[in-house]
């Protein structure tokens, strides 16, 4: 079974708008990562946030982590048509230090020109 759950399942916005995606998980984690997937191909790593961090930025991406609520959010600012993709959160559960990723079902983002 999958640990993470993304919300919403699908999001449709106009270019220039911001997109916010949320992720909830169930067990304690070492870190949480966000990935992007275009057209059912390979996943591209976007950002990793550790369990002792609350916020992290990378370019137009902002990720927050609230371990007390077991939730994370990904904000994409000033979206572009090229941001159209599926976005997944993945948790790296505490399993002896081995990095087994547990993915949610993803949010499908559509950015319209």
């Amino acid at each position, binding site marked *: 079974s*999958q640990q*993470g759950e993304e919300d919403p399942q699908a999001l449709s916005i106009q270019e220039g708008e911001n997109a916010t995606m949320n992720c909830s998980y169930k067990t304690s984690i*070492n*870190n949480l*990562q966000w*990935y992007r997937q275009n057209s*059912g*191909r*390979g*996943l*591209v*790593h976007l950002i*990793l946030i550790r369990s002792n961090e609350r916020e992290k930025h990378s370019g137009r991406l902002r990720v927050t982590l609230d371990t007390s609520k077991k939730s994370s959010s990904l904000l994409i600012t000033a979206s572009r048509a090229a941001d159209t993709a599926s976005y*997944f959160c*993945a948790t*790296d559960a505490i*399993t002896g*230090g*081995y*990095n*087994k*990723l*547990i*993915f*949610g*079902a*993803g949010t499908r983002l559509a950015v319209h020109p």
Partner: protein
Amino acid sequence: DAGVTQSPTHLIKTRGQQVTLRCSPKSGHDTVSWYQQALGQGPQFIFQYYEEEERQRGNFPDRFSGHQFPNYSSELNVNALLLGDSALYLCASSWGRDHTQYFGPGTRLTVL
């Protein structure tokens, strides 16, 4: 610097057959993980190889097996294929205890 590569890109098999998928990790990486992604779902962890041994395994039957070679490349074997095995199979590589995994483009398996 080549990233993670997988072969073949697409594969069509019939029920009961066996299939082998291949993965070459990113240069410098020593750990390979395999994931299965059904249509519309997130990837699910199958197993992970390090130093030519299976280190972790997800909830997949023994029909799914793997191997890692001395050059860190890996194979995923699936026996007695079922229709439900149709999916995108993703390989990811990482190094040591670096938690970032780099994914290949995947192999699309269709079982008829």
